[in-house]
């Protein structure tokens, strides 16, 4: 028995060895680092009934990406390269990059995805499907819209960072955290919003501030670029198609309605009774919005309750901060400002008839039976139009900053 076992062992070893050899020789899934084209951003357009995809590939040999803008030490080769391809489907376009590119496209590090307005008007569902289905296309990319041609955006070099895709991601993250005008939208969040009961979503716009595209490294060797990347308006999608734009102020109001405010700056008039001059600034540090739908007779009333608190940062008029009355006056002023924002935004949204505020989800959660009825009648659009909002804002100025009187009030003249 022992001898037999010994032979069986030997046999097993003999069998395993060739297996390992085959494993070594035919490593099916490995990709060397030098074969990869690391895509840091992608853009999609719809032109002449064809998908046009632009990919931005990082150029590793131009030094590690990091700080270091123009200047003598920078290399001559640009930090990234772009490829533009066309195809009947998106994957066909992607695969056609193999006709021109030296390296295999590696999209797992892609940061951003820019959709051209043409794609948005046509319908985004095919694109979203690609992102959710393909194994190495991450669904955590940030989505943007560009007016006109999206591919051009990817050509623009950025200062202070060599990886443009990562740079744009940093931009939107920072903005949504510090400014709260536009929410940062990732692909899966987009998919979630479009597949929820509301059926609508928003996407921030990215644009170039100037006319020219800075796509040569020599051009970026200046201190003040004539044309930079910036965030613009907010695009609204209903179903899978784009239906309109929201301006900055309207977008800001929308953020209040959807309770996505993290930190925001509000400029208000410190003495609203005497003058309309906007000369004060307030940073809203915490804010929460609660929505409650109430059914009244034949339509819904959304009770919007916005609470917030923050710190004063700038006062341009005469003001004594130890005076309780002037503080509540300022608070009132801020509250009015926010109310105005919210009303403005709501009107715009109603006009577009897209439920980006997420009211449908709220109604489903709180009022199930009526929602079932609405769903059966497919009457959400009409119901949505009839919703009126009742906003209440209550802002508290918690801290005044480091000085307790405005500077103007101690000026002698």
């Amino acid at each position: 028995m022992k001898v037999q076992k010994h032979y069986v062992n030997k046999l097993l070893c003999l069998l395993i060895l060739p297996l390992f050899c085959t494993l070594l020789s035919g490593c099916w899934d490995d990709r060397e680092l030098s074969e990869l084209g690391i895509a840091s951003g992608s853009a999609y357009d719809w032109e002449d009934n064809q998908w046009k995809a632009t990919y931005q590939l990082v150029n590793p040999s131009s030094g590690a990406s990091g700080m270091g803008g123009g200047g003598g030490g920078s290399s001559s080769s640009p930090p990234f390269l772009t490829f533009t391809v066309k195809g009947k489907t998106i994957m066909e376009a992607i695969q056609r990059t193999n006709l021109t590119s030296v390296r295999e496209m590696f999209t797992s590090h892609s940061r951003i995805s820019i959709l051209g307005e043409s794609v948005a008007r046509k319908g985004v569902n095919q694109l979203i499907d690609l992102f959710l289905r393909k194994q190495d296309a991450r669904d955590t990319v940030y989505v943007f819209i560009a007016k006109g041609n999206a591919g051009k955006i990817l050509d623009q070099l950025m200062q202070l960072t060599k990886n443009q895709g990562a740079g744009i991601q940093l931009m939107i993250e920072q903005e949504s955290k510090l400014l709260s005008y536009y929410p940062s939208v990732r692909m899966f969040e987009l998919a979630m919003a479009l597949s929820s009961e509301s059926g609508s979503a928003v996407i921030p716009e990215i644009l170039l501030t100037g006319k020219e595209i800075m796509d040569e490294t020599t051009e970026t060797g200046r201190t003040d670029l004539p044309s930079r990347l910036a965030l613009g308006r907010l695009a609204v999608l209903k179903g899978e198609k784009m239906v309109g734009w929201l301006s900055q102020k309207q977008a800001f109001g929308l953020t209040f309605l959807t309770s996505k405010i993290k930190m925001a700056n509000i400029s208000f008039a410190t003495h609203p009774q005497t003058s309309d001059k906007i000369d004060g600034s307030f940073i809203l540090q915490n804010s929460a919005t609660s929505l409650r739908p109430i059914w009244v007779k034949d339509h819904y009333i959304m009770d919007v309750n916005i609470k917030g608190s923050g710190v004063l940062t700038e006062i341009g008029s005469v003001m004594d901060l130890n005076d309780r009355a002037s503080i509540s006056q300022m608070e009132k002023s801020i509250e009015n400002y926010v109310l105005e924002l919210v009303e403005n935004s709501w009107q715009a949204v109603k006009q577009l008839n897209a439920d980006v505020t997420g009211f449908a989800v709220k109604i489903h959660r709180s009022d199930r039976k009526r929602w079932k009825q609405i769903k059966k009648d497919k009457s959400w659009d009409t119901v949505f139009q009839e919703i009126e909002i009742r906003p209440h804002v209550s802002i508290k100025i918690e801290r005044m900053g480091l000085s307790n009187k405005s500077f103007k009030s101690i000026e002698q003249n």
Partner: protein
Amino acid sequence: MLVVTTILPTAIVVLPEIIGSYAEQDSPLAISLSTLIGFGIAALVGTIIRYNNGASFLDWIGARSSPLLATLLGLLLLQYYLDTSATILREFVNFVKDTVLLNTPITVMTTLILVVTIYMVRQGIECIARVNSLVILLFLFFIPLYLFGLAGEMNVHRLLPIFDHSLSTITLASLTPTSWMSEVAILLFLAPYLKSPQKARLIGYMGLIFVFLMMMFSMITTMMVFGPQYLKLTTYPGFSTVGIIQIGRFVENLDILFISYWVLAIYLKFSIFLFATVECFKQTFRVKSSRPFIGALGLVIAMECLFTWTDPAKLNMYNREGRFLVFMVFNVLLPLAVLLINGRRQAKSKRKGCET
């Protein structure tokens, strides 16, 4: 603990999608229902084991009733276990191929997995149990990571509204997880190796509770992150959630890490099933030593896996609909029948004892 590994790995992969498509937000309820039923099954199995006090299952049946019945049962069970093992292997390979290794041919992966598992079974159930306890310990490391990473994304409101769906849909949704829970019947074959067969019922319960907690945890967190509709899309929702985790700027795309851990767990599950198959074989055909047969059985499983289940749609449908019937028959009705027979026998022998 072995019970946990028996049920959990494939459950986490396959079930959320199925339950989600039926029940959406009410999935936690469906899971609870199925666990309750699972308790019943565990009680059944535990009782049987207590009666036969740790003897091997088929031998005991043969002693109680006729040996022919035992062989017949053995053949049926053997076929069942072979089938189940093949489906597990298929799911394993499918999953790995989908997420990690896209281009590697299935044959290579199957062979590798088989070789490893055959080695594992040769070493014996003791080693498997020991490694199992180690692997479950490791789980403790992953849970905080998971929670910490996802804390920002979770939104409790997405769990509402509950009770949106009718009881019938919930029951429908809970059928498949019940069939999974019924895999606890594998204790029947592990019985000879348990240290204390009296505690078999307790072991079944504890294992089921643990599985329940894990499933709830995974289901609830996934729903909190994604919301019920999006859940229907993804094939492997648990792992998609992990893919979103982004801690700081440098830790992202962790799903590969979790997948690696899952690979460890599924190896264990597959080896447990292979072990059960071998045990069944050993008892049916009354062979003393199982060493040479492990390889042969493994080969059979591999063949079945490769050729029968080439179509993932078929596998999905089987998971959704067919599996329930099969599992119910073998994991519930069979032990029930055995228990009844046993009860009758005991009553008869008691009567006989009283008479004489």
